[in-house]
């Protein structure tokens, strides 16, 4: 009987709602109707009414939670996080808010921030929201890369990387990978030819920690064994970064140094990113790095544009311009130390999320490289990289 009565009230409220904006907004109207929309999964109307209510000064925890959840389901992670953070201001211990802030931040690729929120939940609450705060193995990933050079003086290089992500604490992640690279070629000196072979092995470790909800610190170490026709070089790279994300904006600052028996390369950079709210999660990231080698400083510019083509497909286009000799990127995971320095590169990466567990990616790239033996000449390289990540 009571249920019938409440249905009648909801129907009456819905019937009175068509004149949107003209209906007198009050708490009970907003609360009843948004709850009904939430229960019936009518995300579009829920978002519209919640936004109208907030404009009218009606703002409370459950409204923000419902709106946040509606945005999350719709794939608009920025607005989801924005609403859920408002809900958190009303009640910083609410498991619903914390749980869905975790998922919103995962959608924004802010895993440590997500971990920060889940750390505020009890083990039972995390279990209810299917959140595992610590994992020995969170994911394993594999990358295979080959490239086609436009010169006969260099063979097609091959690159392989195997990575493992662990989460010892909800706010702390540890990523480790091993990599191998090889290439053969001929250096054409005026009077002689020198055939070479490069073999390279690397170990990379990265720690990320969420100090505060929107502040992360990162530290990485990259060791590289580089065998250039039996002339061996050991490189040690140390990297530190501080990043902050404020709603749509992400800012980061980083510094690194690579030491080997040839010289020390120092690098410092700034990066700024912007995510446009919406289902497409359109993002723009721009960065500038200063690379200092043997008292010479060079600027390297980079940019990435990303867009979600669907719930399961995301595409990133990137470009980097500048003299990239011992330049590191992606938190020092990739070190551009090949014999021929890259002076320009661009690529397109498409990520396919097949299910909750597996993500594939395919990168096709173009690189313009300067000959080691003659820096007035360049050659081109087209690369293809395939990757796979398995979440546990």
């Amino acid at each position, binding site marked *: 009987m009571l249920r019938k009565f409440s249905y009648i009230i909801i129907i009456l409220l819905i019937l009175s709602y068509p004149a949107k904006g003209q209906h007198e907004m009050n708490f009970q109207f907003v609360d009843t109707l948004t709850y009904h929309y939430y229960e019936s999964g009518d995300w579009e109307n829920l978002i519209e009414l919640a936004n109208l209510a907030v404009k009218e*000064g009606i703002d409370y925890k459950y409204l923000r939670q419902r709106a946040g959840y509606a945005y999350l389901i719709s794939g608009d992670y920025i607005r989801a996080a924005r609403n859920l953070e408002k809900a958190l201001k009303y009640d910083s211990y*609410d498991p619903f808010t914390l749980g869905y802030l975790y998922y919103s931040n995962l959608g924004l690729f802010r895993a440590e921030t997500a971990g920060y929120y889940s750390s505020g939940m009890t083990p039972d609450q995390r279990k209810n929201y299917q959140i595992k705060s610590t994992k020995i193995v969170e994911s394993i990933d594999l990358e295979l890369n080959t490239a086609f050079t436009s010169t006969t003086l260099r063979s097609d290089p091959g690159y392989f990387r195997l990575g493992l992500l662990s989460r010892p604490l909800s706010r702390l992640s540890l990523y480790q990978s091993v990599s191998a690279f090889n290439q053969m070629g001929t250096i054409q000196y005026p009077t002689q030819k020198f055939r070479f072979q490069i073999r390279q092995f690397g170990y990379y470790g990265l720690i990320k920690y969420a100090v505060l909800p929107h502040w992360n610190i990162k530290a990485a170490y990259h060791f590289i064994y580089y065998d250039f026709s039996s002339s061996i070089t050991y490189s040690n790279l140390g990297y530190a970064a501080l990043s902050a994300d404020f709603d749509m904006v992400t800012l980061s600052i980083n510094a690194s140094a690579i030491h080997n028996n040839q010289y020390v390369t120092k690098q410092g950079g700034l990066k700024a990113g912007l995510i446009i709210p919406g289902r497409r999660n359109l993002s723009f990231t721009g960065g500038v790095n200063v690379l200092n080698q043997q008292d010479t400083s060079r600027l390297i510019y980079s940019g990435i544009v990303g867009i979600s083509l669907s719930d399961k497909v995301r595409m990133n286009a990137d470009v980097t311009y500048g003299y990239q000799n011992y330049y590191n990127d992606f938190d020092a995971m990739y070190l551009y130390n090949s014999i021929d320095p890259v002076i320009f590169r661009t690529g397109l990466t498409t990520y396919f999320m097949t299910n909750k567990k597996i993500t594939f990616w395919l990168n096709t790239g173009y690189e313009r490289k300067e000959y080691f033996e003659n820096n007035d000449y360049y050659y081109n390289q087209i690369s293809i990289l395939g990757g796979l990540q398995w979440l546990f």
Partner: protein
Amino acid sequence: MAILRMFATGFLLLLQVSIINAQPDSRINEAFARSYKAEQNGTYSEGVADLKSVYQPDNYAMNARLGWLLFLSKQYTESISYYDKAIKLKPYAIESRFGMIKACNALESWDMVKEQYEAILKIDSQNTTSLYWLGVLLYNRKEYDQAAKNFEKIVNLYPMDYGSVIMLAWTKLFQGKKTDARVLFDHAILLSPGDSSATDGLNLLK
């Protein structure tokens, strides 16, 4: 003569303005009286409408009363906004803060509830209602050290208050202070013979 007429007109205008300004007192009194009646009859929205018809933003009583009536009519967010205005007008009055707490409770906005209890305790550090409910809120958040401080203050003031004694006993138990907890559970049984909560606590300590 013309100057005299202008002066007289001006004087009358001023008089009228002052009458208009003075008039609201009676209108406000009537609106308040009607709002009490409406509250008695349970027609809270009528009381709200009466007060809104003579609303003065800088009138503490009007804002506090609107906060209360809106709370009763379950318009919690509006209630909070009026209580907020009242608090800004009289920051050292604690009644509006308690009113706001009621509305925040209804919305389960626990951080706002905590903020208001803490503000009340800054004004009146011995306020037992605030000490108790802030203690409960902290206890629910498993912040036992802070919760214990609140309950201890009440138990020191009112050693025979069963509610605070039993809460302090459980808080001490979760703090790992077993001896203190046992003494307090025993005392709770003295205040409430056969009390099941205290017996449960003592059983856990065995």
